[in-house]
């Protein structure tokens, strides 16, 4: 594990070279089984992306934002958490982290089918729902971490947000409060180069987002977000610090959104083809495959077998979700209040055709 690095270091932390070799003197905190589990999660994410995209095209799913390109950033960070006591607060492009916490693929399919129950995190699953209002989740994460600590838990909260979301006032207010309260939060800012069509240089003039950390009195670290090991390393240290009561950390995962923003987006309007080509060469899946192949942990046959299994799992989840009867009108009214106003109950009765 690398030592704590200076805040605002200009070069991203990298443990795994593009050719899949680990830099001399660097050990991996993940053992073989963990590495293979992370590998599985990354391939699963790719399988989900492909399947969901085609389901959307068939009209069987609503708008969906693929993860492709950011698997190492999401998996590397999430695998540094202990799902039994740590929490994930997602934006909307971190399904692998949500699944690790205990959310299920079938629920995800329901969510993207527009079923209100798709956003249900079962009791015991330490996870907040998808967040569509960008950056609004970051204050929640800080309050959650503060509340856990207040109640004597040593749980840590890992919150994800994008380079775009970082420009929102909520991001600032939350980072600042976390500093003041030394809340046990790991802020994972996934800088994937884009907020829809807006490039990072229109989002910030700073050399890095990690440089913001100093202004909040917390350590900041710039990490190669396509490097599973570096992401895991930086987050493991940040989790340890938070757990020990030493407060929050801001991690900038520098990665790249290899696909469209979502199923409605046409990136050819604004992404330079040559740039995309270059960035695709840095695909985190390729890099991890090289590493695991060199370590003798995977080969083409095992990968093909795994991919087939993952696809079958996705298909099973889709089938399970599609077998659920579509929600009825009561789904609009349930869970709006615990103790609902009479007027809304009257509307429910009218909409469901039940006596009020």
């Amino acid at each position, binding site marked *: 594990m690398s030592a704590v690095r200076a805040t605002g270091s200009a070069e991203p932390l990298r443990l795994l070279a593009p050719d899949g070799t680990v830099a001399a003197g660097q050990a991996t905190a993940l053992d073989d089984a963990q590495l293979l589990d992370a590998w599985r999660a990354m391939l699963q994410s790719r399988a989900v992306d492909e399947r969901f995209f085609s389901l959307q095209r068939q009209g069987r799913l609503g708008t969906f934002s693929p993860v492709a390109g950011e698997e190492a950033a999401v998996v590397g960070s999430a695998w540094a958490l202990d799902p039994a006591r740590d929490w994930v607060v997602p934006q909307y492009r971190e399904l692998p982290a949500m699944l690790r916490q205990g959310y299920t693929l079938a629920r995800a399919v329901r969510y993207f089918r527009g079923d209100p129950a798709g956003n249900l*995190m079962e009791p015991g699953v330490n996870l907040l729902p998808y967040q569509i209002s960008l950056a609004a989740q970051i204050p929640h994460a800080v*309050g959650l971490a503060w*509340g856990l600590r207040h109640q004597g838990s040593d749980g840590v909260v890992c919150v994800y947000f994008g380079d775009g979301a970082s420009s929102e006032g909520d991001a600032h207010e939350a980072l600042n409060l976390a500093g003041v309260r030394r809340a046990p939060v790991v802020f994972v800012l996934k800088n994937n180069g884009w907020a829809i069509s807006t490039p990072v240089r229109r989002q910030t003039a700073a050399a890095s987002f990690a440089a913001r950390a100093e202004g909040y009195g917390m350590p900041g670290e710039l990490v190669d977000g396509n490097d599973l090991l570096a992401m895991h390393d930086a987050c493991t240290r940040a989790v340890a610090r938070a757990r020990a009561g030493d407060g929050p950390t801001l991690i900038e995962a520098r990665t790249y959104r290899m696909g469209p923003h979502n199923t409605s987006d046409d990136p050819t309007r604004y992404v330079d083809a040559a740039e995309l080509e270059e960035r695709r060469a840095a695909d985190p899946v390729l890099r991890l495959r090289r590493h695991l192949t060199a370590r003798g942990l995977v080969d083409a046959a095992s990968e093909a077998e795994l991919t087939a299994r993952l696809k079958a799992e996705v298909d099973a989840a889709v089938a399970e979700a599609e077998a659920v009867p579509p929600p009825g009108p009561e789904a609009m009214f349930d869970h709006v209040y615990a103790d609902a106003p*009479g007027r*809304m109950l009257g509307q429910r009765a009218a909409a469901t055709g039940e006596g009020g």
Partner: protein
Amino acid sequence: MAVMTMVEAIRASLAAELERDERVLVLGQDVGVNGGVFRATEGLQERFGADRVVDMPLAEAVIVGSAVGLACSGLIPVAELQFLGFGSQAFHQIEGQVARMRFRSAGRYGMPMVIRAPFGGNVRTPELHSDAHEAKYAGAPGLKVVMPATAHDAKGLLTAALRDPDPVLFCEPLRGYRLIKDEVPDGDYSVPLGRARTVREGDDVVIVAYSAAVVIAEKAAERAAAEGYSVGVLDLRSLVPLDTDALREAVARAGRAIVLHEAPLTAGFGAELVATIQEEAFWSLEAPIGRVAAYDTPYPPGAVEELYVPSVERVLAAVRDVLEA
């Protein structure tokens, strides 16, 4: 029973709930050592510690937003907005997050929290401090909106709000903090949300109001009584839930109604009240329902604010108009 000012009643409710339920946490700007700029939280930090009565950075969105997270962790946060007008800085967190988290999470994350916020005019505050934004929050499904008019109700409704499983915006009238005084029971009690209070019965016209405007309504009713009219006053106590039964009955009895509030006329909650009344009691109506409200202008600087906030005279004029219609 003791006579208390409204701010004392609020403080008493907060203290009692902090004492009773260790999940309750108070957070806001200057709520700690300073005891709040209006002293609503005076002495609470001393008594319950800086971990439970927490001075926050000057940032409304994260005061409310972190309360969402605190609630997810199992606590019951009481977030103070120093003024309701600055709730606008947190509008996206209140309307888009607090109000919807239970629904968004299909029931997993209820939001048992209270957002306290003073508002209201004629106390010579600078710009934006007096703004009455209640209608904007009443139109945020998932939220409850409570607006007490007496010290008794302030304590009882705040206690109910603190024990309610849903998020409550609790609006406190600046003008009433010290001016409104009445008998408040000593012990534990709560006033249920959604039950209006009949302040006085009336056969000729009923004035429907809430918060400090109830005091104006009462004075106008007394003055009208001196002129020989029987004017009722209904104090709504909460806008969501809304006591439509009480509205219907009061209007059925009087046949005429006036709705009154401190917010500007257009798209104010008075419009909702008129719409509800005519839905519930159209056939009882003998005249158009009168609306008395502030003008459709920003809350003005102090030298003219007394002309802006509805006065007893304007209410009386409306009473005469409605009776003569």
